[in-house]
């Protein structure tokens, strides 16, 4: 299918040039990194920019580094780069696990995490993971830089806090200091690639505290603070899981759509939370399934 909408294409050589374009064109400019969302939108006339700005030549947007406990993912970091990175696999296995559930190799070789959170579909797999890591999104415009906590990033379905003259430069996560393990449970219609009908990301810490976030179960991916409060300080057990299950149902608001029904999503939220917690805790003790296995519900 060809693209019928017409636009200019620019590939700025440096940030200054890029930011000038965004400053000038604002909503009429779209950044192009992997293109796995943008090109679909262009083909289906969901996006009609005047100019497409290819940011792949901007050196400062690339790179994946862990320095003094802070993981910096340049905006051009692809899901494949995450999966291939020994640092991510060993130090941020939850992010590694979630990345494996995104599309397939050919798409992951191009699709970026930054692009994933900028498209901001409620089912974005990276979103609940970034949320439990308390990530921050770095943006930049001619006016300067901003740090947006991930909790403030998603403002509505397909809406973010990104301003029209800004681009995302990087995402930063802090490596939690306490011993921890995680699990990303994803509800799919089958075993193959799918947009999550529900996703629960969990970090379990050695001091019996937990972080929980959900995607595809409400208008935006978000942390579940009530559930975390109910869990916090306690060892997992049937009673606690039941209570946590009841609580999380108050924090999610799934809808019925062509992918799944509200009833099933609510039913699965409870189950996925329980299984994700159990798996994370098992992994905390060196047991449980390897990351990247048995996390598709």
């Amino acid at each position, binding site marked *: 299918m060809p693209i*019928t909408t017409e636009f200019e294409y620019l590939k700025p050589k440096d940030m200054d040039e890029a930011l000038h374009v965004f400053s000038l064109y604002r909503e009429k400019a779209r950044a192009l990194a992997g293109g796995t969302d943008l*090109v679909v939108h262009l083909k289906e006339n969901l996006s009609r920019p005047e100019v497409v700005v290819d940011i792949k030549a901007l050196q400062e947007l690339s790179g994946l580094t862990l320095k003094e406990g802070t993981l910096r993912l340049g905006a051009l970091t692809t899901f494949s780069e995450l999966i291939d990175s020994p640092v991510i696999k060993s130090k941020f296995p939850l992010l590694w696990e979630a990345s494996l559930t995104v599309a397939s190799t050919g798409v992951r070789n191009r699709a970026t995490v930054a692009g994933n959170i900028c498209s901001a579909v409620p089912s974005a797999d990276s979103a609940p993971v970034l949320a439990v890591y308390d990530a921050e999104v770095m943006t930049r415009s001619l006016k300067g830089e901003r740090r947006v906590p991930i909790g403030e990033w998603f403002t509505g379905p397909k809406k973010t806090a990104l301003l029209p003259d800004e681009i995302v430069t990087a995402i930063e996560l802090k490596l939690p200091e306490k011993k921890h393990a995680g699990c990303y449970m994803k509800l799919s219609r089958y075993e193959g690639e799918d947009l999550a009908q529900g996703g629960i990301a969990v970090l379990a810490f050695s001091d019996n505290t937990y972080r929980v976030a959900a995607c595809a179960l409400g208008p935006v991916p978000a942390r579940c603070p009530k559930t975390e409060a109910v869990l916090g300080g306690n060892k997992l057990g049937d009673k606690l899981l039941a209570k946590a299950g009841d609580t999380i149902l108050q924090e999610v608001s799934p809808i019925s759509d062509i992918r799944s029904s509200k009833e099933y999503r609510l039913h699965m939220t409870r189950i996925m939370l329980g299984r994700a917690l159990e798996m994370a805790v098992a992994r905390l003790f060196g047991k449980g399934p390897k990351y990247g296995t048995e996390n598709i519900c």
Partner: protein
Amino acid sequence: MKPHNIQFSLNGEKVALSVEPSDVLLDVLRGRLGIKSPKVGCDRGDCGTCTVLMNGKTIRSCLALAVEADGAEIVTLEGANSRKWTQKLQKTFHAKNAFQCGFCAPGVILSATELLEKNPKPTSHDIKEAIAGNLCRCTGYEPIVEAIAETAKGK
């Protein structure tokens, strides 16, 4: 809209042409450069038949703008036919009658080539993960997976 003059390496040969910003890489390869192995299957990157290697990695050429190929190295099955792992895979695919209609074959072969060039000792799970984005409606995948595994083992 301003056309762009781009240059890239296509299966080892230098190519230069003028494209519009809205030209899709797959359409340019098929419509203007005589490359027919990447196919139009689904328009959205869901089926994998448009797979080509761009700078060594498999990508969905239906989701890439032609302008993005400027300065890049593009390899399609026509060019990969001479690579060591591709040839080994093809021999096994042939002996095992692994494909039926063949429409998914170029994409599968490139994905499998990428896998074995990166990881010559893949597990069964690795093999499946590598071709999980290549849809095949005919075979049920089993002979394809078996063929890739046998190729890796060097049978």
